[in-house]
């Protein structure tokens, strides 16, 4: 008989800010049984993080539970005092946080932090040999090599995946029956994501821990979870066994979420028409290499070497690489921010490193860059109008009426309502801000767009809209894209050709269909296997 670990009944939570209240959760009910893994899926603003925080009792001060109850095991924790909570947290419930880079205290050793997780109510730590032994055992259990040595290291000395393992070790230190995992892999590379998911599965199997798995990624939720709850604007619109959610989604919202997943997107990047001759190459990169001078021991670190590719006009090259693969260096070379030490770059027939002055400015206008996080690339105090107007004013080629016309034109191209122009950039949603970033890039009438992880920070439905927009813009304006992403499913949808980078080397380059159907290297096979949700996609179902 399975016992209930977490039981939420009719939970209402609202935030009060400047006198106005915002209902974050509305009559939410959930049950989680021992050893079960439930995925709580929702887009940003759906209230999924609020629910996770409420279960741990760490809601911000301006949030209040107005109605309903939360039970952890036999304890009613709905209105527990801070002191009583401390007896539950760590022992009965634990958290695996979202961002391993900022979730460990940077100035204390791994050992000190694990010791605190093992015995949060006692001082004096690793000196006790049994605490030390337990900490080593925990790290060993997480598959961390040389665990005894790690205890003396600081968080910044570990990789992202390793830090997340340490955080998981800290979470299970006191063997809680319930773990809240709040987007535990969203800050990690795909191959590391697979390892962390496998680790969670092991925990569940070996310790019988129930896991509330909060994610925005429906594809990821399709793996290893028993049930999925879909949260939309604070309301749970559907809870069902995972298989059933994907095979027979009941609500329109769930159906739309599934349809928007790039993994399940049926038509891959429009296959170029064979009857028309291949258009001329607008980007030519030959044997490109770049090394950073090492500050010590007079050596060079190769950031990338021997990169060679071409992109024909109006096509998309997808570049895939995990962190440290050299893709940032490659982009900086393409933008002419750094001069490569080896090889050549030709953009629209010109080498950016040989150009100076006006010629370089003209080329920069033709090659535009769109960055991952639109909110960071704009001055937040600017209005949307000012953000668009600024480059036009600087170019001093247009009178106000012409400027207005140009702006109206690009807004129409990116399908952004002109009524938003008066808003501050910081007040725009992620999707709106990314459209604004695209609009700004299009203002100079570029021929090449370099898109760096432009959809990574967006919800799936918005992501899907932006990808469709990019496809349409390419068709209408004949734009050439270099599209960098860590997400292979997005790459597959948008790119005609794919370049895979690893440790600064180009390990695979070819037509998209070819790479996905017949990957040549083990690394590519591994990357493709790491795409979450592939196993439950309709295509996979057809094959089996």
């Amino acid at each position: 008989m399975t016992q209930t670990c977490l039981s939420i009944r009719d939970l209402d939570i609202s935030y009060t800010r400047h006198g106005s209240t915002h209902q974050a959760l509305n009559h939410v009910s959930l049950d989680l049984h021992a050893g079960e893994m439930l995925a709580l899926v929702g887009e940003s603003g759906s209230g999924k993080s609020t629910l996770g925080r409420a279960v741990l009792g760490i809601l911000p001060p301006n949030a209040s539970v107005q109605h309903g109850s939360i039970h952890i095991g036999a304890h009613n924790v709905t209105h527990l005092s801070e002191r009583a909570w401390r007896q539950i947290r760590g022992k009965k419930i634990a958290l695996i946080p979202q961002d391993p880079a900022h979730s460990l205290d940077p100035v204390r050793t791994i050992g000190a932090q694990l010791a605190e997780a093992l015995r949060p109510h006692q001082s004096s730590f690793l000196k006790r040999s049994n605490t030390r032994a337990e900490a080593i055992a925990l790290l060993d259990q997480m598959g961390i090599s040389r665990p005894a040595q790690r205890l003396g290291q600081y968080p910044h000395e570990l990789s992202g995946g390793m830090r997340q393992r340490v955080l998981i070790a800290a979470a299970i230190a006191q063997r809680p029956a319930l773990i809240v995992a709040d987007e535990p892999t969203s800050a990690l590379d795909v191959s590391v994501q697979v390892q962390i998911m496998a680790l969670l599965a092991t925990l569940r199997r070996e310790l019988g821990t129930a896991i509330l798995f909060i994610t925005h990624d429906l594809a990821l939720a399709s793996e290893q979870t028993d049930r999925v709850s879909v949260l939309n604007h604070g309301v749970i619109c559907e809870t069902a066994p995972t298989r059933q959610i994907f095979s027979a989604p009941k609500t329109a919202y769930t159906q739309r979420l599934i349809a928007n997943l790039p993994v399940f997107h049926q038509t891959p990047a429009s296959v170029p028409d064979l009857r028309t001759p291949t258009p001329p190459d607008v980007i030519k990169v030959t044997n490109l290499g770049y090394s950073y001078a090492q500050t010590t021991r007079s050596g060079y670190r190769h950031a990338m070497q021997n990169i060679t590719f071409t992109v024909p006009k109006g096509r998309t090259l997808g570049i895939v690489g995990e962190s440290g693969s050299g893709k940032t260096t490659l982009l900086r070379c393409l933008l002419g921010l750094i001069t490569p030490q080896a090889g050549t770059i030709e953009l629209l027939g010109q080498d950016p490193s040989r150009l100076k002055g006006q010629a370089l400015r003209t080329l920069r206008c033709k090659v535009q860059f769109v960055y991952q996080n639109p909110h960071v690339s704009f001055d937040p105090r600017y209005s949307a109008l000012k953000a668009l107007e600024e480059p036009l004013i600087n170019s001093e080629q247009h009178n106000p009426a012409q400027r207005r016309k140009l702006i109206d034109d690009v807004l129409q191209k990116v399908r952004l309502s002109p009524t938003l122009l008066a808003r501050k950039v910081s007040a725009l949603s992620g999707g709106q801000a990314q459209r604004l970033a695209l609009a700004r890039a299009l203002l100079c009438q570029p021929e090449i767009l370099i898109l760096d992880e432009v959809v990574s920070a967006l919800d799936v439905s918005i992501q899907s809209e932006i990808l469709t927009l990019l496809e349409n813009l390419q068709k209408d304006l004949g734009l050439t894209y270099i599209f960098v992403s860590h997400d292979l499913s997005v790459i597959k949808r948008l790119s005609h050709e794919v370049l895979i980078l690893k440790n600064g080397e180009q390990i695979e380059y070819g037509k998209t269909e070819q790479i996905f159907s017949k990957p040549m290297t083990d690394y590519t096979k591994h990357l493709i296997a790491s795409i979450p949700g592939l196993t439950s996609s309709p295509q996979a179902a057809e094959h089996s």
Partner: protein
Amino acid sequence: MIRYLFTRFLHALFVLWGAFTLSFVLLQVMPGDAVLVKFQDPELGLSPQQIADMRATYGADESAITQYAHVLGRTLHGNLGYSIETGLPVGQMLHAAYPTTLRLAIVSFTGALAFAAICCALAILLSGNPVGRYLAAAIGAIPGITSGIPVFWLEIVAIQLVSFHWKLIPVVGLSGWSAVLLPGLALAIPISAPLAQVFMAAAHRVEALPFIDVLRARGVSPLRILYAHILPNALPPTLTVSGLVFGEILAGAVVTETVFGLDGLGQLAQQAVASQDVAVLQAIILISVSGFVSIGFASEIIQPLLDPRIGRSARQRKY
């Protein structure tokens, strides 16, 4: 590490030499010299010939380069020269004044640090509580107020209350540490303001970081989160500011010394400026600069101990 310390030491020597040279040039540019100031008084009735002889005795008539070489040479031999005003060796005058200043600096700095830490701890602990939040906001405003209080006024009030009204500490007849207790504590209040401001701002920044929530979710008590996590993380920026503050009091606190009648470096500097006593001024400048240099050096050694991400080992890695 040894090589690193050695290069830092060479840097420090260079800074000292630079300060020495710069102060020499600036003092040369000042019109007149100490001999003229002292002996040109008509009441002394000295003839121009006699004054010229005096200047020759003190070496004031030689070219600037020769004087510079001479002064640098004797300073390197540990001889700081003689005060023109008193005729005493400068080393002896410093030896008399420095202990008072050092004691005053230590008392006021320790007091300021303690005051800043208490303000910061209270502000963080209270801000978690719905009612305490208002109190925390009030505490947050304290540094702004104390930094605006004139030091001399605060010290006069302190003497009035502590010495005359409550009769806790006598005003005269004290020596050693007891003499600097009241002035030190009075001086601590205004100088704690920048420390407390930086400390609180840093602590609030740390408090908003995700790892604090992770610690709460792990069942760690607020008090432990404060002393084991927030304060250690907020300490490095505070240390940088406190180095500057400490260096400033080491160079002498003229106002405090005047109000309490202490004979510290501040008094010495003030008299030396009034009488253009170049040798004394140069010695004081040298002492202050070496104070700053050694504090900077010390904080650079302490910083990596407080924050493992900074320091040499970190620079070699990619962060």
